[in-house]
């Protein structure tokens, strides 16, 4: 790769995605709209490869910072490219590409018209770009901007399906998310007031020097951040918008939101807590315990709510709540294994949940049945779809050889390292509950006689390819976690300020 590109690759990824996003509406008029879609997919794939390249760089040459426009911090905008951003770039690319590929098949039919489809693509790419930005950014200003872009974009793609429930859900989502971003903004303001900086590295220096002087203020701003990002990333008591939004959107949107959008805010939260404020301060404050407790609550409660659902997508949405609990639990543990588990789970849950949502969308589209109780015998008609759904379920339950197990394993180790046996019980019980709410679907689909056999066929090959790709990703991560695990551990190490273990 030529030097000019490789140096500026980080910012190039975001810029390229943004520009593609803005091109999209112009492509409405071309005869074959699929060209546009495949162009978008292609750009995503490029972003993915760029992310992989960056990750390799980071793994080998260590983290580095990039001053946008050559202006150094604190005046310029600084991108800090470390293992976190590498991992998250890979995650986004790896998951977003198949999702868009899947969406591209009958996007126009889903969202109504060509122009709407084009705008959908725009929003989608905007979302992806914002997430990448969240991954690589190094200062709070950027974080705020990217968070806002992501929020608006995700709201909009929920509303892409043009019906009452979707719009109502979107409005609620928008309202709550805006309140959340208001809190985030307040938090940023507090930090700024306290330290006079928006660059996280500088803030960290300032705080580590003088945080004992104003613990209360720091605490309040941390609570602002927690609540703000908690709302956006559906931490348990604040998840209330999620089920509606994620279950009423079209399949690709739900997949995108559930798997990636949420994770973006979590990454932001991680950066604020562990980079800006600093690991030693955070771990000394009770906020981590609160995160642990909330995480455990989320795991159990989310699973129980999921059990109660009969609508497949809604059940999956609640399962997202439960899985986010795992991630927050890892954050709360605040030790190397726990954070590694968090990162691994960000990746594996992204892949798994998007796969599940896509499969669910395929089932619903082909059979017209959205309730689990109606899905008897679907497995015989759509073996591939239900097969990948099975893969996703097993990974979600945390069976070895599937990606879910790797993260759960790390989380278990982390909670044991913390001596937190309750967390161990909750983690194990959570996976049992996951089995309880996912396996019945498979049982219905594969082992019960269909009530009336309507002639149902598999979805288009492209969609099958997309889903199979995700399934392969899951299994590969589960079988050979090596490199990814290394990256995750490095990311955790960066957060904790340990010297990178290679």
């Amino acid at each position: 790769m030529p030097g000019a590109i490789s140096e500026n690759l980080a910012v190039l990824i975001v810029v390229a995605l943004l520009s593609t996003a803005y091109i999209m509406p112009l492509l409405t008029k071309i005869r074959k709209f699929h060209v546009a879609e495949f162009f978008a997919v292609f750009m995503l794939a490029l972003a993915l490869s760029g992310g992989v390249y960056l990750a390799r760089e980071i793994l080998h040459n260590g983290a580095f910072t990039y001053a946008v426009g050559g202006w150094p911090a604190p005046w310029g905008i600084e991108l800090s490219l470390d293992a976190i951003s590498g991992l998250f770039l890979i995650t986004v690319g790896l998951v977003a590409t198949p999702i868009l590929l899947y969406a591209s098949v009958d996007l126009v039919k889903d969202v109504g018209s060509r122009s709407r489809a084009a705008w959908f693509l725009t929003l989608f790419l905007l979302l992806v770009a914002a997430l990448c930005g969240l991954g690589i950014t190094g200062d709070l200003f950027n974080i705020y901007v990217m968070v806002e872009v992501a929020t608006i974009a995700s709201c909009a793609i929920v509303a892409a399906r043009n019906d009452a429930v979707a719009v109502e859900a979107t409005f609620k989502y928008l309202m709550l998310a805006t309140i959340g971003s208001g809190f985030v903004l307040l938090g940023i303001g507090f930090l700024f007031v306290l330290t006079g900086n928006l660059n996280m590295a500088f803030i960290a220096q300032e705080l580590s020097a003088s945080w004992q002087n104003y613990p209360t203020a720091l605490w309040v701003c941390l609570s602002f951040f927690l609540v703000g990002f908690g709302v956006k990333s559906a931490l348990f008591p604040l998840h209330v918008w999620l089920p509606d939004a994620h279950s009423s959107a079209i399949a690709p949107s739900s997949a995108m939101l559930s798997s990636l959008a949420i994770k973006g805010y979590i990454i932001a939260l991680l950066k604020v807590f562990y980079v800006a404020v600093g690991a030693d301060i955070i771990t000394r404050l009770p906020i981590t315990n609160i995160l642990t407790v909330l995480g455990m609550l989320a795991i159990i409660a989310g699973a129980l709510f999921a059990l109660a659902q009969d609508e497949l997508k809604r059940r999956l949405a609640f399962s997202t709540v439960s899985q986010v609990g795992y991630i927050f639990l890892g954050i709360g543990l605040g030790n190397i294994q726990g954070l590694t588990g968090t990162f691994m789970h960000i990746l594996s849950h992204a892949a798994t949940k998007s796969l599940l949502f896509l499969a669910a969308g395929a089932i619903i589209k082909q059979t017209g049945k959205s309730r689990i109780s109606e899905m008897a015998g679907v497995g015989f008609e759509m073996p591939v779809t239900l097969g990948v759904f099975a893969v996703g379920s097993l990974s979600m339950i945390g069976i070895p050889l599937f990606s879910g197990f790797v993260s759960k394993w790390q989380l278990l180790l982390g909670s044991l390292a913390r001596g937190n046996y309750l967390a161990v019980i909750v983690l194990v019980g959570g996976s049992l509950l996951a089995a309880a709410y996912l396996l019945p679907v498979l049982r219905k689909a594969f082992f019960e006689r269909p009530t009336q056999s309507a002639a149902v066929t598999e979805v288009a090959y492209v969609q099958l390819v997309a889903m199979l790709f995700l399934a392969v990703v899951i299994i590969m991560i589960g079988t050979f976690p090596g490199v990814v695990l290394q990256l995750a551990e490095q990311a955790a190490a960066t957060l904790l300020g340990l010297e990178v273990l290679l």
Partner: protein
Amino acid sequence: MSTVLVLIAIFSTTFGAIWIAVTPNEAKTERNSVALGALLGSAAIVWWLLSLGLHSGVYPAFNIGVASLSLSFSLDPLGLTYGVLASTLWVFASVYSFGYMDQDRKQRQYFSFFLLSAGITLGIAFAGNLFTFYLFYELLTFATYPLVVHAGNKEALEAGTKYIKYSLTGASFILAGIVMLWRVTGGVLDFGSLPAALGSASPSQLVVLLFLFLIGFGVKAAVMPFHGWLPSAMVAPTPVSALLHAVAVVNAGVFGVLRTIYSVFGTEVIQSMNVRPILLVICSITILMGSFIALKQDVLKRRLAYSTISQLAYILLGAFMLHPLALAGAILHMIFHSTLKIVLFFSAGIVAEETGYLKVSQLKGVGRILPLTLGSFGIISLGMIGMLPLSGFWSKYYLMRGSLATDSWILLVVLLFSGFLNALYFIPITISAFAGKSELKPRQKTSVLWLMLVPTLALAGIGLVFGLWPGLTLPLVDAVVAQFFTL
């Protein structure tokens, strides 16, 4: 070389399963030949590995994958015992299934999962560290679930759900145990080096660990409080109940317990923990209660299931006595009980297929119609009681000697008494089958019947041969005992 062979042994059946999954449901001959070929192949390889290990003492061991959680396979006499047992009986069961499943509509599904679970069982047998063991143990549950619910009716589905619930709960106990072990030993999970690594653990940790593992494996081994799934899982097709619920799955649990006791903790540690009395009491209760409940069952397969529960406890009893003789008894009982019990299930299946009778009370005079079937049933049931010249005697004999060698007299009484209970619930079946008059007409032997009959008779013959030449198993048993006890 042998590394590759191990992998082939494990995964050949998997390929066979995939092949069958893609062959159309009509191609019966192709399917059957693929299944038989794959199973025979893997069985042959396992036998070869066994002979290699026994003669030259070479046991292949190797790792796959990177990072902390590596799949490691390492063969040892104990694993090979289980592997040989499972893979061999699988061949017989497959032949039986060709007959039994002849008219079934979902043969493709059945046989693919049948082969799949065969490979997974071998994986359990050859696992070299706890993680690999847990992985295959977990997979076995999912691979066997379709076989359990094969009938597809309400009852079968409920039984399957029960099965999954029990197994997953047990597996999660094991997972917790493994993680805790990982913490305690600092990342050592290999069976070879575990007992040494456990030296640093505190007694309380050890007890917690032990019970996590024992509960986890006890679920599949159907130890008394956790036995509920086994009888209800008998709704599965007979070859499945025979193979999975008398041989493979339950023995996987037993095998796990053996691993826990001997490979994970090691005899010294367990001795020092003095939990032995509790475990022995639990086993004895399981033995007796199992027999007592079996006395009351009228459905033949349920009766067999409860007898399985009680017989498996014998093996655990032998394992918990921590004495070379008792361990030999446990290994012998693992081998002999499987070979005998599978015959009983096969016969029950033939009766169900030919006459449609499922209850003991219906069997009056059926022996006249199916003399070979019921005859082998009767003879083999004598073996279950522990009568010479059938193999069942020798394992009990060694268990008794072990119990005496460890000065636990009461176990001797338990063993003898449960033997008598076995007689009480097995003998009447045969007698009523041969004594009474049945209104059924004797029918001519179809090829299907022969497909089911031949494995049954062959295995019955094996039971007799082992009874007269128990020494045939001696090298294997000696190897296992020498592996864990320095004599």
